[in-house]
């Protein structure tokens, strides 16, 4: 890689350029437009959320950035390179089950490192330290079914962060968890992110979650999926997710986001 692209990759880790996506509809010959000409640049070290009601194309956009869905038009530039197939320069935390069920927690966290041929000693050390950081020491040899939902998600976080790729894509990662566990995991995520400062692209339909975690919220509208507004969240860090309602600036941003989403939520029903 040349010096030039390195510098560019420093400035814009992910650039979405005029991306559209149409799916074949249920009836023959019809099309559902999930995304319509979406463009945005994501700044280095920033925590960005895609917020919108279900059906707004936020997950589709994330999957296009991950390269597991192809755009109908437009392109993704990731770390200075045009994305042609699966994006192997990011980590991805999926919506559903986070870990491979046939591997133990330790084997799951090792998996991306072994694929990238890290030396065994490095693998062992990184895995030990990340399992420790997400608070799962002592559970290394358990299989995912033996872990609680929250523990499995922590394992998925460790697996995403362990390779230290600089970009983490998360698709409603805390969706299926109970409210209490969600708060704890959101707090943990912010703590871990403060250490590593990767770019995080976070898909959610939860307004409070988006405000509590993000630097920038990209509010999306329903069919066809478009960017409606981009809202900066000026709440200072470090943030305490449990007390986020009392944080300076929270009320203003919350109202701003809520108002933008108001018509969306009404038209959604």
């Amino acid at each position: 890689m040349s010096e030039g692209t390195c510098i560019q990759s420093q400035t814009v880790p992910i650039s979405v350029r005029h991306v559209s996506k149409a799916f074949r509809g249920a009836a023959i010959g019809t099309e559902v437009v999930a995304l319509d000409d979406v463009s945005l640049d994501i700044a280095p070290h920033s925590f960005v959320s895609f917020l919108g009601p279900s059906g707004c194309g936020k997950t589709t956009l994330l999957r296009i950035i991950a390269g597991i869905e192809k755009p109908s038009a437009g392109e993704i530039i990731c770390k200075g390179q045009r994305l042609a197939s699966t994006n192997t320069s990011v980590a991805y935390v999926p919506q559903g089950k986070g870990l491979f069920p046939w591997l133990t927690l330790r084997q799951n966290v090792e998996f991306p490192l072994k694929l990238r041929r890290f030396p065994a000693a490095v693998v062992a050390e990184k895995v030990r330290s990340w399992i420790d950081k997400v608070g799962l020491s002592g559970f290394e040899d358990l299989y995912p079914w033996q872990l609680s939902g929250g523990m499995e998600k922590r394992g998925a976080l460790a697996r995403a962060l362990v390779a230290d790729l600089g970009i983490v894509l998360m698709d409603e990662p805390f969706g299926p968890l109970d409210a209490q566990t969600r708060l704890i995991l959101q707090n943990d995520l912010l703590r871990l992110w403060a250490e590593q400062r990767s770019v995080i692209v976070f898909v959610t339909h939860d307004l409070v979650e988006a405000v509590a975690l993000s630097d920038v919220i990209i509010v999306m509208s329903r069919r066809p999926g478009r960017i409606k507004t981009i809202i900066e969240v000026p709440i200072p860090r470090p943030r305490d997710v449990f007390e986020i309602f009392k944080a300076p600036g929270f009320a203003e941003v919350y109202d701003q986001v809520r108002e933008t989403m108001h018509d969306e939520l009404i038209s959604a029903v």
Partner: protein
Amino acid sequence: MGAYMRASAVFGSAKRIGGILLPGILLLVAWEVAGRYVLDTEILGEPSNILATLVKQAGGTKIWYHLWVTASEVLIGYFIGVATGFAIGYAVGVSETFGRIVEPYVLLINAIPKVAVAPLFIVFFGIGLASKVAIIVSMVFFLMFYAVYVGLRTIDAEFLYQARIMGISRTGEIFKIVLPAILPNILVGLKTSAASAIIGAIIGEIVASRAGLGFYILEASGSFNVDAIWVGVIFLMLLLFVMTSIIGVLEWRFLRWLPRKHLG
């Protein structure tokens, strides 16, 4: 404490094995008792006589020779059937075009009752080993085919996507994601195939043969030796027990990751 735990663990597993054996023993006792009063033991046999015949036969070489003949038919047929079923099932499950063309044929051929065409196999392949192997393959193939095919069709594509984002290679995809994901299906295929392979061998031997446990049972029923029929059946069960035990070890070793859940 440690000794107590060990002792109670031993006691616990003894209790479990006892719990499994108890209904069988009760059934045999009931059979024996009923044989004294109500059952016609000329037709059904009775456990004490069967046991005596079993001991006598097991002491000789004849039954072991028949077991050897059947076991070799079963093992050869089983491995060929399992291997081809796996290979074709995998190809059909992975490739959509190939699947669309081949799957209807597999479905059609599977609909042929194997018992009905068993005599054809004897005509084609002769009275010896080959015809029995062919019958077994014709049964085992489909079980393994559908086990693998269904496994591949129901695999969660998200696992593949995740692994691809982590930079997995094409061969890595097969060995680290696809095969582990369908392993439960593969083991179900292996297990059901074991019983079918034995049934296939016996069908073939009963249609036409000069040796094997099916031949032994047929001969015994020809001379109306009920106890000997049962002895033949017991040796068949022994064969199946050995095969399923080996598969059980594979399950214990490779499927520890499956949730241990029971309905109800």
